[in-house]
């Protein structure tokens, strides 16, 4: 059964284009939302614990016409597209919604309805308030249809009477028990992407904290732990049924019995979603560490660890008062935010740092395009280099910022989202969309290639400024030609220190990071928060594919460094050195997020939990924000055989001996894979 995805939006627009085109954008948004909720099919299965299956499985039909008011003039179009020339891209990213579930569970949607109605008395006929109210009406009707489906109960669901009671209460009125709380969260969670027409990365926030009182109440009323687990299993199945399911579920920093149940579920259900975000503080107990450091979880890249104090410090740096900052939620993969107070454009801008360096080194000229950054003179030392770098960054980021602002204006004017705005604090009172009404409109600025650039500056400082071995023009010529005919220069560059080995090369990364955060954050205005980030996901591969060679010895089209990790040119990668390097970066100023990735063998996860816990907590003590883990599975090892270039850092250990996987002979690799397979069978 297909679940709901963006096809429902396309279908509704396709079916009703002329009618929708005749409406104002605000009215149109609420009409589309209503039509979507009406187009949903629903089903109550025999084994369901609560009502969850809503879907749309009509064929993919859509028209390629834009609504008349979405067509922009040439000048705006050129502003929007301009960053592409220097390798940057902007987007108004409509996913990554993080609503305040605690408030919703305690007050119900009816409390929002009351707020809207009281504003309507003051501002009768206000179009935005009307659209908000209409969307709540559409949800009421949807819940009524659910109630009818439960009454009909065509599949003989044994829990029908409980579910019927729950649906009379939630999501409009406060939840009274565990089942109602989960039912309420699911309905809202399901509707958020429908409203945003963006089906990914919707986060659950501090789930174990806001659900806990309901869990305790139900346990006191006779619910068993096993029943709770069945309800959670039902919830997990639903979360995994749409799109990438990349929603982050926070556990901690205070761990309760529900947190433990969730970690247990996460391990047993073996599903990709949700991502478990484990919040770590000085007081995280040993038994929780032991549950979290688990080979089954690690092999699926779970959990993601977050440093409680450093995340809060990052929000303070962003300008949030300390007491409010402590109430943060980790959102999506890398966000640190306040539930119900933000609009998060997490891929708002991918900023090409390679372009900045090229312009800084070549009197404003980029190596492969005609673009010239004005006012950049010839440089002769490191200090001038940093000056030119900052001016280039300023100029190129300004282009990105203008492009983003134009997109955001367009999105707010032509494609508002009244439902998400209802749930975003302040929008009802301001009678406006979340784009300008949210307290923070975060535009994450992913500094693509920053580590490669800082390694490049390190090499230039060594080879050009300190040792006069080459002149800058020679180096640029070599980079421009992808080092063909300049192999000696590349060898010399590769010999230079690189970020990630806890060496002096890290100083260049710190300097570059400081410049970039200054340039980026200078653009803040109104609720716009340009948030520096080193979060690449796997986009470092694609962006690398579209860019020529770099001053760090990276060849054309090779991937950029991933996240806050070292570049692929780093030969010896050790987790402690990487952690010390990454912790030197001004992490709190990169509050857009900057994970580092570590890979562990199953042997280490099984036998050295204490050491892994020490490694992770040391990182957070030093100011690290986020750490992602993985473990070697036989599948990963097989990939490492076929793509050794991706696995320079893969260390395998047996007994007292350790070595890089890539150093092993083919035969030994095969043997190692075989062993791992045996281990997996025995696990």
């Amino acid at each position, binding site marked *: 059964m297909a679940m709901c995805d963006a096809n429902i939006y396309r279908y509704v627009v396709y079916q009703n284009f002329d009618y929708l085109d005749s409406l104002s954008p605000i009215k149109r948004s609420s009409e589309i939302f209503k039509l979507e909720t009406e187009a949903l099919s629903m089903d109550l299965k025999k084994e369901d614990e609560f009502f969850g299956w809503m879907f749309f499985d009509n064929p993919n039909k859509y028209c390629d016409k834009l609504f008349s008011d979405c067509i922009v003039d040439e000048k705006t179009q050129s502003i929007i597209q301009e960053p592409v020339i220097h390798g940057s891209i902007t987007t108004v990213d409509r996913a990554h919604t993080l609503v305040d579930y605690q408030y919703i569970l305690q007050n119900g949607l009816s409390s929002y309805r009351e707020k809207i109605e009281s504003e309507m008395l003051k501002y009768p006929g206000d179009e935005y308030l009307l659209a908000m109210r209409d969307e709540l009406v559409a949800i009421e009707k949807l819940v009524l249809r659910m109630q009818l489906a439960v009454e009909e109960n065509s599949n003989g669901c044994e829990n029908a009477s409980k579910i019927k009671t729950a649906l009379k209460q939630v999501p409009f009125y406060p939840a009274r028990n565990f089942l109602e709380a989960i039912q309420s969260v699911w309905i809202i969670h399901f509707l958020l992407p429908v409203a945003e027409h963006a089906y990914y990365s919707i986060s659950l926030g501090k789930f174990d904290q806001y659900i806990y009182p309901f869990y305790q109440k139900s346990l006191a009323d006779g619910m068993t732990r096993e029943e709770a687990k069945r309800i959670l299993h039902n919830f997990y199945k639903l979360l995994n049924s749409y799109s990438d399911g990349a929603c982050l579920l926070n556990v901690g920093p205070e761990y309760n019995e529900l947190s433990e149940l969730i970690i247990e579920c996460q391990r047993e259900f073996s599903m990709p979603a949700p991502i478990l975000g484990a919040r770590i503080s000085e007081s995280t107990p040993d038994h929780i560490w032991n549950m979290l450091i688990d080979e089954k979880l690690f092999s699926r890249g779970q959990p993601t660890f977050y440093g409680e104090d450093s995340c809060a410090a990052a929000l303070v740096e962003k300008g949030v008062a300390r007491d409010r900052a402590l109430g943060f939620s980790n959102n999506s993969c890398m966000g640190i935010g306040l539930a119900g107070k933000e609009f998060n454009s997490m891929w708002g801008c991918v900023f090409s740092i390679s372009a900045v360096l090229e312009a800084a080194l070549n009197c404003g000229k980029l190596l492969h395009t005609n673009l010239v950054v004005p006012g950049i003179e010839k440089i002769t030392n490191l200090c001038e280099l940093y000056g030119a770098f900052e001016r280039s960054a300023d100029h190129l980021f300004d282009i990105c910022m203008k492009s983003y602002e134009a997109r955001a204006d367009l999105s707010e004017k032509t494609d508002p989202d009244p439902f998400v705005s209802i749930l975003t604090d302040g929008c009802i009172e301001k009678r406006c969309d979340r784009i300008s009404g949210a307290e923070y409109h975060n535009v994450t600025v992913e500094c693509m290639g920053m580590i490669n650039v800082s390694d490049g500056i390190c090499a230039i400082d060594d080879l050009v400024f300190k040792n006069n071995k080459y002149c800058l023009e020679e180096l640029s010529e070599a980079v421009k030609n992808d080092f063909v005919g300049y192999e000696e220069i590349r060898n010399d560059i590769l010999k230079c220190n690189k970020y990630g080995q806890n060496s002096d090369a890290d100083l260049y990364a710190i300097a570059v990071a400081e410049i970039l955060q200054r340039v980026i954050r200078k653009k803040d205005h109104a609720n716009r928060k340009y948030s520096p980030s080193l979060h690449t996901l796997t986009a470092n591969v694609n962006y690398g594919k579209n860019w020529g060679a770099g001053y760090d010895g990276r060849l054309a089209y090779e991937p950029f460094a991933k996240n806050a990790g070292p570049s692929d040119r780093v030969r010896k990668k050790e987790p*402690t050195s990487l952690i010390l390097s990454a912790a030197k970066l001004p992490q709190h100023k990169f509050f857009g997020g900057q994970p580092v990735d570590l890979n562990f063998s199953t042997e280490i996860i099984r036998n050295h939990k204490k050491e892994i816990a020490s490694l992770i907590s040391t990182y957070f003590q030093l100011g690290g924000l986020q750490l992602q883990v993985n473990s070697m599975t036989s599948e990963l090892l097989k990939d490492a055989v076929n793509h050794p270039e991706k696995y320079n850092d893969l260390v395998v250990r047996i007994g007292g001996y350790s070595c890089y996987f890539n150093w092993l002979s083919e035969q030994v690799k095969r043997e190692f894979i075989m062993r791992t397979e045996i281990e997996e069978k025995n696990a």
Partner: protein
Amino acid sequence: MTGEIFNIQKFCVNDGPGIRTTVFFKGCNLCCAWCHNPESQSASKQILFYSDKCTHCGKCKDWTVNNDNFFCANEAKEICGKTFELNEVIDEILKDRAFYKNSSGGVTLSGGECMLQIDFLEELLKACKQNGVHTAIDTAGHVPYESFERVLPYTDLFLFDVKCYDSDKHKKYTGASNELIFSNLRKLLKTNKTVWVRIPIIPTVNDTEEEMLAIKSFLYSCRAPKKIELLPYHSMGEHKYAALGKAAQAFSIPSEEKMMQLKNIFS
């Protein structure tokens, strides 16, 4: 003062308690047939050549171990062994101090046979202790006991390798008889130092109950070590024999049942 070192490896978790940095000293006076670090045996610098990574560019044809510009972009050729100043090694060790503190870890000096560079070793240990770093020595024990006496004041833990009790066999497979080793171990166990005995299990050499019982009765005739670890043979060093242009002697890998059976002898 300088030492010959061939690797300083961070985040070692199998060479003593906690998170450790292991310093591998170059040079060994045994020549164990199953050695997984064959590049550690010679005290002098050597070239490792991984032929499967070589693109035959020819740039390296005049390179020697003393060449300053020795650098293969393909990582096909590298020099094993580097002369380190004492301070360089200490600086490298101290970089991970935060991790030692949080995990009750420290430094492990290994090899090769680190005790062969006793002057350097002693100074390095002293410096580690002055900086509050927990110290461990990984040794095969085939050195004069005076060497142990020199490092005792600065060493928190000894990882003492025992191969086999049968002296002829020991001589056949390691190139040396084992009298000195066992005599050193007996003396060391009489001190109040923590000792972990580590026994590599090599099929056809020492994977028998008789061998383990003999080692056990020896150990129990002294003050029993704090820990006895049995490490299964593995062939992970094979590619390095090829890189040195040497032939590796093949052994089979002990089964899990076999390891269990032998471990039970000590439990």
